[in-house]
């Protein structure tokens, strides 16, 4: 699904990530952890083609990223649902339009009922007309998740999805992601919240990847 072979990335200075090889198997559930600034967000950006590796190969759905045209990259992103760390909404559009944005730009109709169902599922049924700046952190994160899955993607990448949520809200969001994984989606969550990881491991067979010294390693059983 997503495969990296000897991938390195550098923003221009020294290498932030080097020699990373990894495969996200279909239906797997991964956490990516590591201290702030370790490169978690950078890694996710490599996984949906916002950044291109400075060395090595990244394959998305069996196609080398470097060989993709700009249109191909757009089409690939429709198959990968991303919950961005800073959510990335269009503040001039109501929440419902923001959540339906991937459908809009793909020229697909957004069934009003499906959209309402999705918003209800993430607990935002009554906020369809609110503008993103009016929402709380937790509401924004759940809206971002709704937008990430509206195209029915095979893969869901979430960057600190519980970053500014209280514990209860974090658990709700985690439950949504676990549910999605049970529906067959491949899930990768970047987080530094170890409690969240422990909680998840009690519910599902999740693997934990840790970025240390520019490499990604499988974390031990203590997590």
């Amino acid at each position, binding site marked *: 699904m997503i495969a990296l072979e000897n991938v390195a990335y550098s923003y221009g200075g020294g290498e932030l990530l080097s020699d990373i090889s990894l495969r996200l198997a279909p239906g797997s559930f991964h956490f990516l952890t590591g201290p702030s600034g370790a490169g978690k967000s950078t890694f996710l950006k490599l996984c949906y083609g916002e950044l291109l590796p400075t060395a090595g190969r990244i394959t998305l759905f069996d196609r080398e990223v470097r060989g993709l045209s700009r*249109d191909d990259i*757009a089409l690939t992103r*429709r198959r990968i649902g991303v919950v961005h760390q800073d959510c990335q909404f*269009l503040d001039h559009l109501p929440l419902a339009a923001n959540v339906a944005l991937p459908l809009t*730009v793909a020229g697909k109709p957004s069934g009003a009922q499906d959209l309402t169902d999705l918003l209800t599922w993430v607990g935002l049924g009554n906020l369809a007309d609110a503008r993103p700046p009016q929402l709380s952190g937790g509401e924004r994160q759940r809206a971002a998740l709704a*937008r990430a899955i509206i195209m029915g993607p095979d893969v869901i990448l979430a960057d600190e999805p519980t970053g500014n949520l209280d514990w209860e809200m974090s658990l709700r969001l985690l439950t949504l992601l676990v549910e999605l994984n049970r529906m067959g989606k491949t899930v990768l969550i970047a987080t530094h919240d170890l409690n969240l990881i422990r909680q998840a491991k009690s519910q599902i067979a999740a693997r934990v990847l840790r970025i240390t010294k520019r490499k990604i390693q499988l974390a031990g059983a203590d997590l």
Partner: protein
Amino acid sequence: MNPLSLIRPDRQADRVVPPSGHTAWLTSFTAGAMAFLAVFAMALSLAAGRLADRWSDALERTATVRLSAPEDQMDLQTKAVLEILSKTPGIASARAMTDDEQRALLEPWFGPDLPVDALPLPRLIEVTEADSGYDSEGLRQRLAAEAPGAVLDDHTRWRRPLAVAASRLRLLGLLSIGLIGTATAAMITLAANAALAANAQVIRVLRLVGARDSYIARAFVRRFTLRALGGAAVGTALGMLGVALLPSTDTAGGFLTGLGFQGFGWIYPLILPLLAAGVAFLATRASAFRKLQELT
């Protein structure tokens, strides 16, 4: 991107880019002002063209050599003049007028019974100029030397510089339209760049959720094209009104009063809004794709 797809309203696609404030106004105004100016440049160009045509036509390519000589020398000198003329480069043909022709020329003044033979009238020789034109000063000197009674009369020549000036003026008018078009493209490019920069975050988000470049570009291109079309339509209408309201005193017959559109000429300015829309389409499209290249 199909230009026709710009006309079909796509409210969803339009809404993804927030409505812009001053760039919208700037684009419409620029297109309007430029179209207004272009109408006058076009009127100038068409009027100058008409003038150039009229003057060139009037510029008969003929001159006359008037030969006065004692009767016994007349035939001899006529021959000499024809000889010189036949050897002058740039003269297509030369022909001595017959008595009948000369009588016909003089009839309006002296009546039909003029005894041409009995009068010491000069002989008229009709000279037709070739396209290349001839050196009139040189010809004049040669005639003076070899046929002292011959005078070259090429009075229509004075119109030539006017005809040249008129066609230059037409060219300048067309050049002005070209410059106006280029300036419009430059200003719309600036406005489009400003709009693209102001919406950098929107463009980023659209790209992240899987929008193709053409989709994002269209949202901007559509706006700017329609604004340019609307602004130029108003500017053209006002310009045409201005031209229509110019006094048309044909009696004065001057260049200024002839500065209008005639007949089908009124159709020409109608292409200006389409031209402005085309310019806006291309300029915005180029800006948008250039901007998008900065993002993956």
